[in-house]
């Protein structure tokens, strides 16, 4: 038997053991056991004899698939076909790729007989830059906007994604933003420019068979869904639907699911109450609820199987403070909070590390049951925490999406060495980059000696052999052994330059990695992180090469290596790989932005909320070219976004974030506060205000805090 009968509440059992032709809507707060129902339901269907390949598990993001994958791979599992797990993006891409030659012409692509090129986030930004940069220079677009160009491009990409997900033509982006947000002609111009750029990018893509996320979702909706072969395929593969976290999905997913629900045999639609924190990625919880009408049965789970009574009380108190209906408290929420105020930020970091150490050493908490969360994770905070934990012998792992590729030390080292090895690019790196590259590349070389080597042996954009150091004392200081390693690296690069046979840049990285940097005596030897980051860089450079090689059918060829390095220099936001996120969670505390933690949808025993004075906990990112709410299905046409809307949004954002966090915390939240923030300012954001107000409302009694 795959599914034990006894481990579920009555409500859960009703979802798990529903008939094989029933459609069930299941709702409840995070941590109430909904995903357990979803997982058991899949196993139950297989037990019924439903063919695995007729089951589709549909999720808003891939990271949520883990509990399903693990259950399906359990040793006592079924024998048969494979259950499909998809997001809207993955299914759209797969279907467009498969049926491309049947739909390319109708979809408006200029070369329907050629293969399509699908663009990752990185490539979409690059292609966008190729289209837009001439416009910025020639037509003075966005002249009053002061943000990095990479963020400018990515916000235009974001607008196009919203159009595809919400369901309006890209030609309406500018008008929608203007009617809600344009306070004057200057702002109206910005939105006009954003509109023109989106249109230019779309035309560029159609002329070259390029498909960014917005375009392949659009083609899936418009062309694929009308194709008899594709419909037949989907009908056979989607007879039984399991949809989890439907509230985090977007209107395009909801429309697709509505279509499937009309014809599928059974369904379980799982909705997380009070959630929808992925609004910035198009989540629309209100729209999700419309799917309820397709279901025969509606079930609700109320009780958390994660939170203790005190944590539940804290969750309620914070939500009530931010406008949710107050619930009678069964416990004292103060017992779920531990805090200590500090004057300076480093003191807070030390206190956090001490508390983590105490939890592990004295209370036997497993490190992976501790999450250190901040609204944003700066390099300084990440480094400070990792160092403080390391000093106490605690392993930590951190994940930060939305990071530039060049920010990772291993990638930076490879890129700096590539610049030296390609003098014809005329992009010799500054000395400090070389010093860091040498320190990263050569095992045992510290920054002081790396800087000395750079000072003595890096001249005119070239490295020179170790023997060029005239002073024996200086050679001794570097050490003969490190000098030999330096020479091995220098010789490899010099031979490459002398051979005058420029390799594709990704191949260059792979050779440099395999022939030098991963060898004994070098910095990447047996270093798992360096290997993974190098591989991500290789993937990125290779994807770039493939796309541009294919583009040479339509455009003038460019120096691919040079073009790639320039792109990275522009601060391209790297693809964020889920495999890095999911790997090796055992034995290490997590350091992450709060929303990144929520991506994994897992609960921990203890959370540390850092920088609670920061307004980043409630404020949305500064996005002058886009707006997740105005470009949503729920925004009334013609309405104007006001300061009151912004304040209300702050409150709603914080409420859903705090509910999401507390419902994924079993025992206690530690609050990390310093009067002066990392940058030396006093912060009094909405989270701090909310915590103080919520605690003040409680009856006076001996405080735990």
């Amino acid at each position, binding site marked *: 038997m795959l599914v034990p009968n006894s481990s579920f509440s009555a409500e859960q059992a009703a979802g798990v053991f529903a008939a094989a032709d029933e459609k069930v809507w299941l709702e409840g707060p995070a941590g109430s056991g909904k995903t357990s129902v979803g997982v058991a339901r899949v196993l139950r269907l297989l037990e019924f004899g439903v063919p695995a390949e007729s089951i589709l598990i549909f999720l808003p993001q891939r990271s949520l698939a883990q509990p399903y994958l*693990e259950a399906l791979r359990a040793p006592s599992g079924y*024998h048969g076909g*494979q259950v499909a797990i998809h997001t809207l*993006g993955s299914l759209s891409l797969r279907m467009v790729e498969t049926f491309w*030659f049947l739909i390319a012409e109708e979809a408006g692509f200029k070369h329907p007989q050629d293969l399509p090129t699908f663009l990752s986030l990185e490539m979409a930004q690059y292609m966008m830059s190729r289209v837009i940069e001439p416009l910025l220079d020639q037509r003075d677009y966005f002249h009053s906007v002061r943000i990095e160009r990479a963020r400018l491009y990515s916000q235009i990409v974001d607008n196009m994604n919203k159009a595809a997900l919400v369901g309006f033509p890209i030609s309406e982006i500018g008008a929608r933003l203007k009617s809600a947000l344009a306070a004057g002609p200057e702002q109206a111009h910005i939105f006009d420019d954003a509109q023109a750029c989106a249109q230019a990018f779309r035309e560029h893509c159609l002329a070259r068979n390029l498909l960014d996320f917005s375009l392949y979702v659009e083609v899936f909706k418009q062309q694929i869904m009308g194709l008899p072969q594709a419909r037949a395929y989907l009908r056979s593969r989607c007879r039984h639907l399991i949809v989890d976290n439907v509230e985090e999905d977007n209107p395009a997913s909801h429309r697709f699911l509505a279509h499937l629900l009309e014809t599928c045999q059974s369904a379980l639609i799982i909705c997380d109450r009070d959630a929808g924190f992925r609004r910035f990625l198009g989540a629309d919880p209100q729209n999700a609820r419309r799917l309820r009408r397709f279901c025969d049965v509606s079930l609700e789970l109320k009780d958390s199987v994660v939170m203790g009574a005190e944590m539940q009380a804290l969750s309620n108190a914070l939500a009530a403070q931010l406008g949710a209906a107050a619930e009678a408290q069964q416990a004292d929420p103060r017992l779920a909070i531990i805090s200590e105020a500090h004057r300076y930020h480093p003191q807070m970091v030390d206190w956090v590390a001490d508390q983590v150490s105490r939890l592990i050493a004295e209370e036997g908490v497993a490190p992976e049951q501790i999450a250190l969360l901040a609204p944003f994770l700066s390099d300084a905070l990440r480094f400070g925490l990792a160092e403080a934990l390391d000093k106490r012998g605690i392993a930590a792992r951190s994940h930060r999406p939305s990071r530039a590729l060049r920010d990772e030390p291993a990638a930076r080292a490879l890129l700096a060495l590539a610049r030296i090895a390609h003098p014809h690019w005329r992009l010799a790196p500054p000395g400090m980059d070389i010093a860091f590259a040498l320190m990263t590349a050569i095992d045992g070389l510290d920054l002081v000696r790396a800087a000395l080597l750079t000072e003595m042996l890096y001249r005119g954009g070239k490295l020179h052999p170790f023997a060029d150091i005239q002073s024996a004392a200086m050679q001794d200081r570097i050490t003969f052994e490190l000098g030999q390693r330096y020479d091995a690296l220098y010789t490899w690069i010099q031979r490459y330059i002398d051979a005058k046979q420029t390799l594709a840049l990704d191949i260059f990285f792979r050779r440099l990695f395999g022939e030098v940097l*991963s060898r004994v005596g070098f910095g990447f030897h047996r270093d798992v992180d360096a290997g993974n980051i190098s591989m991500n860089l290789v993937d990125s450079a290779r994807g770039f090469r493939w796309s541009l090689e294919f583009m040479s059918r339509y455009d003038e060829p460019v120096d691919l290596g040079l073009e790639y390095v320039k792109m990275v220099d522009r601060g391209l936001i790297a693809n964020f790989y889920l495999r890095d996120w999911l790997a090796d969670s055992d034995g290490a505390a997590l350091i992450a932005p709060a929303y990144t933690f929520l991506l994994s949808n897992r609960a921990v025993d203890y959370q540390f909320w850092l920088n609670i004075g920061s307004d980043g906990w409630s404020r949305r990112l500064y996005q002058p070219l886009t707006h997740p709410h105005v470009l949503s299905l729920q925004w009334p046409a013609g309405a104007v976004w006001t300061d009151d809307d912004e304040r209300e949004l702050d409150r709603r954002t914080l409420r859903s974030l705090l509910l999401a966090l507390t419902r994924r915390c079993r025992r206690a939240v530690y609050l990390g506060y310093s009067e002066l923030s990392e940058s030396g300012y006093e912060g009094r954001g909405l989270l701090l205000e909310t915590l103080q107000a919520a605690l003040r409302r409680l009856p006076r009694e001996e405080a735990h805090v």
Partner: protein
Amino acid sequence: MKLSADFAFTQGSLGDYADCPRRFELRYLRRMRYPALEVRQALDYEARIRKGQRFHKLLQQHLLGVPADLLARSLADDDELRAWWEIALSKGLDGLPRERRAETTLESSLAGQRLLAKYDLLALEPGGEAVIIDWKTGARLPLRKALANRMQTVVYRYVLASAGAQIYGGPIPPERIRMDYVYVAAGGARLSFPYSAAQMEADETRLTDMVGAIDAAAEFPLTEDERRCRFCNYRSYCDRGEAGDFNDFDFDDAEEDEDALALDFDQIAEIEF
């Protein structure tokens, strides 16, 4: 070290273990990605892998309903691929049972672990034959004995026999199963391997022993046969020489690794800008 909860054995991972336990450990237990080159002639290797992947994709598209003439139009600039395609259409599908399933995956349990096989094509006739077709684009035909002993032949037939009941409409007698390797670059030469209950029992013993050995292993030693390191990208991790030569590489293995070189869009999360 434990296998991850979502791990399933495949012919590739078992083949890796048979070649070198250390490689198995690095690739599947530690999930270490390592960008060193497999062969010195990296671009030739890449082009060859991509062509093989495109060929497999073409057949999948065709079997899902995209007309052959439409697909053929996209091959105008690649004579070799067009030749493979024409041979696959003219010879590869001859005489097969009518119900055809492209790119189908079956999963089975074995010795407390999952075992998975991803088929290029399954052609079945309920009550009749169950044929596994595996397209190969290598120009050299391997020795029949080597192919019979190959982990792919062992795993694919065993998994179909043990997990194919639902798509066949009942348990498949092993004698009804046949695995055909079709070598499109060798004029469509077909090497067929019938199955039997005795062979299935022998395969089960072999696979159970291997899976059991991996499960129980406390150490994953490096192979002593350095020839096996020539095309292994962990060579520098183990201090084992230089990349091998393209002309000596067996593409039959690489063809089964659909992740080779592909950028997996599923792995890329959406982020806020």
